[in-house]
């Protein structure tokens, strides 16, 4: 947990869960695993609030609990997970992806699950059906079976997964250390690490659920009827056959999808549409056979690729071969050749593709901050690894004075490092080589922290702007509410204009400017998150390929 990550997590928790949860969450992030008593003592808040916040955090998967590390009698420890909280930045992207793949139904399912953390299938289906019915015309409603089928397809493609058994596993941790021979239930491995969802053997199995009905439209009713309606859901707690089976969104699967999208768009930008379609086909064929942390897909023969191309693309076999050769020869190395059997065996190099994408990001950062000549020096150093100052000037074809200045600026910003190679055992300055070098991995990490800091700054600025104009915003909300109620009860246009004029023209301008700023800041956060995703994927893939 770096300082920037903790600060960003705090802001995200505050925006989505309130200040109480933010306090508890930041405390746990800063201090690691804690038990309830320490948290109470450090935050000084009431027992109730702390317990509720812990429940909220566990419900959303941001916090895990393990009982009794030091033996069966010791209290449960809670550990907050920074990565889960940082995912909140990416929620809009997940929802949008679900919309493109599964339509409005899929979008609402993912949105409900993200809002609530963990839910059973039946409650999700009911809520989504109600929401869809709200937006349909009068008299039509959404059937539960349609929503259920969308849910099942999301589970089949692994976008949703079952939650691991938290309660059972927690108890098992206490008894497991004694004898490793006892066959553990499918949930927990015999280590003290909390069980992942994947270790649960049934994690993608849709339960048998009896759900018959249609979505209910929420009508504006009087108080008596309202109370009766409010009482009814509590009275009819039907058992649908899936109690205790909770579902959560599988972020890793979404990340794989984003990674594939990034590779395909990169190929489309660099080469052309047909080659990107070929790469898309290859990725689609190896979706199920490739593990998430693999560096490259399983080899696919050119014959298979030819057969699986989408029907709209009728390119002939020799042209396909030419495209594949082009892809293999490209310096970005998206596709590699793994053999000659079956007309040529081809793989998609995930790790290399991510490395190149990250490298392009770093280069563009340097270009936008320091100019294109500094970017030329940076690219040179990335390619040639270690260079002396004189060599940099020669290769980059930049006059000595300017090259020196640019190198020192890059050095002071820590984008370029200096490596000393001595000629003699005492590091005498006149007899040592000083080589400039760029270490891609550490530069990527540094830029990632910069990105976190950027998003945190953007959020703080947005909160500041909202707080500044709080009075104005409240006034405009009240006026909108009045307008809406007047329109609903059928008022004349004069009344409406009279109400609208309660906001003066300069205030309107101020409101518009405020709205523009807030939209800009929000949009910027979304874009920085795309860079964050790319850099994080690169760093993770390097870490797994190195281990």
């Amino acid at each position, binding site marked *: 947990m770096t300082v920037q990550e903790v600060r960003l997590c705090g802001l995200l928790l505050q*925006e*989505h*869960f*309130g200040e*109480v*949860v933010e306090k508890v969450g930041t405390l746990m992030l800063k201090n690691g695993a804690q038990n309830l008593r320490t948290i109470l003592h450090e935050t000084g808040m*009431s*027992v*109730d*609030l702390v*317990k*509720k*916040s812990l*429940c*909220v955090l*566990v*419900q959303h998967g941001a916090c895990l*609990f393990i*009982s009794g590390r030091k033996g069966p009698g010791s*209290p*449960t420890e809670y550990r907050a997970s920074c990565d889960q909280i940082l995912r909140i930045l990416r*929620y*809009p992207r997940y929802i*949008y992806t679900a919309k493109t793949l599964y339509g409005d139904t899929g979008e609402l399912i993912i*949105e409900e699950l*993200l*809002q*609530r*953390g*963990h839910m059973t299938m039946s409650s999700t289906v009911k809520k989504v059906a109600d929401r869809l019915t709200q937006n349909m015309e009068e008299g039509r409603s959404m059937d539960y079976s349609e929503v259920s089928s969308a849910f099942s397809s999301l589970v089949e493609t692994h976008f949703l997964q079952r939650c691991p*058994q*938290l*309660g059972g596993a*927690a108890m098992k941790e206490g008894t497991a250390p004694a004898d490793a021979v006892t066959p553990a239930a499918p949930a927990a491995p015999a280590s003290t690490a909390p069980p992942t969802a994947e270790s649960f053997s049934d994690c993608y199995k849709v339960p048998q659920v009896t759900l018959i009905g249609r979505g209910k439209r929420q009508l504006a009713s009087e108080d008596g009827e309202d*109370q*009766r309606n409010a*009482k009814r859901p*509590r009275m009819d707690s039907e058992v649908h056959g899936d109690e*205790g089976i*909770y579902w959560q969104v599988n972020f890793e699967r979404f990340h794989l999808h984003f990674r594939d999208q990034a590779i395909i768009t990169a190929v489309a930008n660099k080469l052309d549409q047909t080659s990107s379609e070929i790469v898309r086909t290859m990725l689609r064929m190896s979706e199920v056979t490739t593990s998430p942390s693999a560096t490259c897909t399983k080899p696919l023969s050119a014959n298979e690729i030819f057969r699986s191309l989408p029907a709209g693309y009728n390119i002939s076999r020799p042209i396909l071969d030419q495209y594949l050769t082009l892809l293999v020869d490209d310096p970005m190395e998206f596709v590699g050749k793994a053999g000659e059997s079956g007309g040529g065996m081809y793989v998609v190099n995930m790790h290399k593709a991510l490395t190149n994408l990250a490298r392009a990001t770093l280069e563009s950062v340097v270009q*936008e*901050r*320091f*100019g294109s000549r500094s970017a030329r020096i940076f690219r040179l150093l990335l390619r040639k690894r270690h260079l*002396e*100052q004189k060599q940099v000037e020669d290769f980059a074809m930049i006059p*000595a004075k300017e090259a020196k200045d640019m190198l020192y600026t890059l050095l002071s910003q820590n984008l370029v490092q200096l490596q000393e190679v001595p000629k003699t055992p005492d590091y005498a*300055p*006149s*007899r*040592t*080589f*000083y080589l400039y070098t760029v270490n891609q991995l550490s530069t990527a990490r540094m830029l990632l922290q910069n990105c976190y800091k950027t998003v945190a700054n953007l959020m703080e600025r947005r909160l500041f702007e909202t707080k500044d104009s709080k009075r104005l915003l409240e006034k405009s909300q009240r006026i909108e509410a009045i307008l809406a109620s007047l329109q609903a009860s059928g008022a004349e246009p004069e009344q409406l204009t009279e109400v609208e004029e309660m906001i003066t023209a300069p205030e309107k301008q101020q409101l518009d400017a405020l709205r523009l700023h807030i939209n*800009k800041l*929000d*949009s*910027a*956060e*979304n*874009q920085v998150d795309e860079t964050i995703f790319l850099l994080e994927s690169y760093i993770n893939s390097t870490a797994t390929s190195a281990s």
Partner: protein
Amino acid sequence: MARRGHGRRMMGFGADSVSIARGDALPPTMQQPTPVYPAMEQKPLPLTGGEEAEYLLALKQDFRGAMRTLPGFIQPAAKKRDVERYSDKYHSSEQTDGLPDWTIDWKRFPKELRVRIKKPARDSTPAVVSRSDRVQPGQKKKRNVKEKEEVLLKLETLEKKEQQESEEEEEEGEEKKKQEEEEAEGEEEYDEEEFEEETDYIMSYFDNGEDFGGDSDDNMDEAIY
């Protein structure tokens, strides 16, 4: 290093390798911390617009708004101000505890996090809980017959839950329950009457006299006329 040049400036790098001539002025030293918002030589690129970006923006803002209304959004307890103000009656509607809407499956949470969820007694009185896993069936609104049925239902279910708890806690719980029931009932009656009449006058002053004066038996300083 032990042997610094006596009186000579020792160059960190050799003169050749970084092309600084001996006599050249080194760049001026920094006298103060770097400015907080330094002037940028290059302006940053504009944001990418487009339909997708706008849709993502709308999704993000909707999500944020929706999270505020969900039970997961926890408000801190209302601070008691020195004097009860008129606007509190209107502000208190913003701070309702949404937790009762949220049905939690307690099997998935550790035992110590169990919070007995009671229905909010009053909007104006802050929720006072001495021990969170106490059952307080007495603090129910007694307005409608329908709600009484719900109360009975809840009492039954809560009773069953309580029987699962340990026995020592039950004994303590009953004592505390009675204490708090009395307190709660006293507060409830007071507030109920005030709300029903919607005046600023204290209605219990004109009550039939059973409650008035009965509470202040201990306080012998006031003269009773």
